[in-house]
């Protein structure tokens, strides 16, 4: 993904390989929300879209915002570049309250902030290339330079063939990629992404995520990212905030929030990631062993706190050689193995669960007995 470095800021040398990166020290705040509130009127009711939101986004991090549909994520993001003005409270960007700026200053400040919109917001009257080049045109760059940058971004998002096509002629994912390219073209210091990959296939999503990670690491771009794809958060974010009904209900490093979610909202959001019990297994569970062939079903949650990868030897030693992995697995988040294993084992292993917890270095509470199934 060095293409980006070339495309955007040729002078930057390549950063260290990604995996070598250490957890960064708590950095300086780039965005600070201070008691931010926002209320809307609609259909005769008032909706409190944001409520006493207070937290910081640090310079250089990739910050995720998740939450249920309608939780206020987009509204919060939009207060950062003041497309939405907070009804109460303050939003500081680099220590400054943008509400105090005049038009020219606000525009100048916004030039340092890129935004990818949930609904793309492409200009229908401009071709793909013209849409992407617009921020540069507005900034007054010469056309030759604009063309060069636009071309390399087109390549980066895989739309070389659609250069002179109008947005109405694009597929959903193609539109989204135009929106991404447009948000990147003016080398923002801060990038706001509102569901920037929702319309993209997994492969393209991966390449866009790699791109985001790249500009984050190499160009020190701070990224704020709303997404419904927990895998995306897991893969690229440093910290994540969980919004629920306009309030921040959880905030922390991704491995912590994902590994040991505290709020109900978080748990609900992560449910799918946590490998919910598949229907074919769930349907067969009974509370007492039905026969001699019955197996004990265990749910083992690895929260990554110990930092250890689950060793299978002790596991088999504790549960017996007939132990089968029915479902679940391990994901690595920020270098920590997290996940959930649904195991089937001999019913008598029931007595050795404390042992198992010790072996795997997890709290005993992380092991749950689901019941018994007949080994078909």
């Amino acid at each position, binding site marked *: 993904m060095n293409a980006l470095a070339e495309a955007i800021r040729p002078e930057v040398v390549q950063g260290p390989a990604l995996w070598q990166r250490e957890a960064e020290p708590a950095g300086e705040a780039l965005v600070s929300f201070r008691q931010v509130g926002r209320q809307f009127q609609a259909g005769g009711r008032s909706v409190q879209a944001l409520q006493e939101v207070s937290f910081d986004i640090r310079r250089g991090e990739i910050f995720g915002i998740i939450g249920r549909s309608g939780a206020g994520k987009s509204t919060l993001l939009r207060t950062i570049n003041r497309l939405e003005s907070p009804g109460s409270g303050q939003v500081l960007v680099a220590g400054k309250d943008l509400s105090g700026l005049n038009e020219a200053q606000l525009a100048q400040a916004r030039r340092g902030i890129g935004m990818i919109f949930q609904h793309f917001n492409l200009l229908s009257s401009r071709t793909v290339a013209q849409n992407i080049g617009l921020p540069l*045109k*507005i900034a007054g760059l010469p056309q030759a330079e604009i063309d060069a940058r636009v071309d390399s971004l087109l390549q980066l998002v895989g739309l070389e063939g659609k250069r002179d096509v109008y947005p109405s002629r694009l597929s959903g994912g193609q539109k989204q990629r135009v929106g991404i390219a447009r948000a990147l073209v003016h080398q923002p210091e801060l990038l706001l992404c509102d569901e920037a990959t929702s319309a993209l296939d997994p492969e393209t999503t991966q390449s866009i995520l790699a791109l985001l990670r790249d500009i984050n690491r190499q160009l020190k771009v701070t990224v704020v990212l709303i997404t419904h794809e927990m895998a995306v958060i897991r893969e690229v974010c440093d910290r994540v905030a969980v919004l629920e009904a306009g309030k921040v209900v959880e905030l922390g490093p991704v491995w912590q929030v994902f590994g040991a979610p505290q709020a109900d909202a978080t748990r609900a959001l992560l449910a799918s990631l946590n490998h919910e019990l598949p229907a074919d297994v769930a349907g067969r569970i009974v509370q007492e062993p039905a026969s001699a062939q019955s197996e004990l079903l265990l749910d083992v949650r690895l929260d990554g706190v110990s930092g250890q990868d689950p060793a299978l030897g002790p596991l088999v030693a504790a549960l017996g050689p007939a132990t089968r992995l029915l479902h679940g697995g391990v994901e690595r988040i920020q270098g920590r193995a997290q996940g959930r294993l649904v195991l089937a084992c001999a019913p008598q292993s029931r007595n050795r669960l404390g042992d198992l917890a010790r072996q795997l270095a997890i709290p005993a509470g992380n092991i749950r007995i689901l019941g018994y199934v007949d080994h078909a």
Partner: protein
Amino acid sequence: MPDSFDLYLTAAWQTLQMVSVSALVSAIFGLALALLLVTTGPGDLYARPWLNRVVGSVVNVFRSVPFIILLVVLLPFTRLVVGSTIGVWAAVVPLSVAGIPFFARIAEVSLREVDRGLIEAVQAMGGRKRDVLWHVLLPEALPGIVSGLTITLVAMIGSSAMAGAVGAGGLGDVAIRYGYQRFDTQVMVSVLIGLVVLVSVVQTAGDVLARRLNHRQ
């Protein structure tokens, strides 16, 4: 009664002159006024509610005055601008003065249709207000504006008939003078055919251009 084809040619040429110049003036100033109307309302881009009300009222005043009265009321102004109160150029002034607020109201409608999300997009990329005007409002509303200008042009061809009051001639004036005042149906019908052709050409050209410019679907 005119027996020569010359009469029609001269009249057509006068109409073309009057209407094209007035349309150009109306397009420019009308569009500027429309932008003012659309952007200065409360909560709008430039939010100058007071200015908005003044501009709106001025537009209303000019739209209230029947064209024939406007023509006469404007005579001193016309002389100031074009140095004469008769002829094609003298007709251009009242036609423009009537055309500007008319087109402003029409263009206003199209400008108001522009999706707010697009304005936000340009603001978010650091666009200033003029960028919003230039890169969003105008280009996105352009197909509608072109159609609106077509309507204005055709209306102006109609009004230019009254420009005979200042001796400017033109097709419509011939129709009035011969057809209306002299009951000469033959001349009137010939002239009307010319007008129909002119209007059809304008309308078709406007339609084609608007369709070309529309990349929305």
